[in-house]
C-alpha cells in the first residue's frame, strides 16, 4: 500500500488570489515531484488560471520541476518577482 506524503503549499500575491488561499496542505502519493504537486494544484478551484510556467520554491529555495518532494516539505508558487 503506497503512503501519501503531506506537504504544505504556499501561494503568494496573484496566485494566492487565484487559489483563494495563501497556504494549504496537499497529500501526494509517494514519490512525488515538484511537477506532480503543481499538477495537483492546477486541479484545485482557481488553479486552471495559473500560467503555463510557474516558478516554484522548495523549502525556501528555487526548485526544478523534477526535484523530489518529501513529506513535511514546503512548496511555494511564486509569481514573477517585483521587489526593489
Amino acid at each position, binding site marked *: 500500500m503506497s503512503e501519501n506524503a503531506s506537504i504544505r503549499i504556499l501561494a*503568494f500575491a496573484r496566485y494566492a488570489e487565484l487559489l483563494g488561499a495563501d497556504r494549504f496542505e496537499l497529500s501526494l502519493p509517494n514519490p512525488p515531484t515538484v511537477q506532480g504537486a503543481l499538477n495537483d494544484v492546477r486541479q484545485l478551484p482557481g488553479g486552471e488560471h495559473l500560467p503555463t510556467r510557474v516558478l516554484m*520554491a522548495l523549502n*525556501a529555495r528555487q526548485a526544478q520541476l523534477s526535484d523530489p518532494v518529501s513529506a513535511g516539505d514546503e512548496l511555494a508558487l*511564486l509569481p*514573477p*518577482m*517585483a*521587489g*526593489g
Partner: protein
Amino acid sequence: MALLTGEPLDLGALVAEVVGPHRGAVATFLGLVRDHHEGRSVLRLEYSAYPDMAEAEATAILGEASDRWPVELAARHRTGVLEVGEAAVAVAAAGAHRGEAFEACRYVIEELKRRVPIWKREYYADGSVGWVEPRS
C-alpha cells in the same frame, strides 16, 4: 541583520552598518515609490514577501558580492503599505575605494530585484488595484 522590515528605512543607519576606518568609499542605492507606472498614476504600493526565501536569497546575494569585491554590505527592504516618495529598498556598500563600492552596490540591487521573492500591489488614482508584473 535581516533584509525585511516593516519600519521606515534609515539610510544613515544602513551606512553605519558598513563603514570602517579602512573603507574610504560608501556607495548607496535607494529605491523609492514612484507616482506613475506604465502611464498610470500611482497613489501607493503594498509590498509582500516570502520571508524565509527572501532572507535566504538576500544572504546568498550579499555573500556573492563580498566574495567578488572587497566590501562590507547591507541591504534592507520594507514590506507593507508605502506612500509615494517612501523608500522601499536600500543598499549600502563600503570598500577602500569607490570602484568596488559602486560595482558591489549595483550588483546587489540588480540581484535583489531579480531573485528575492517580493511582490508589489499598486493602488492607482482611478481606484483600481493591480499586481505589478515585471517586464521579462
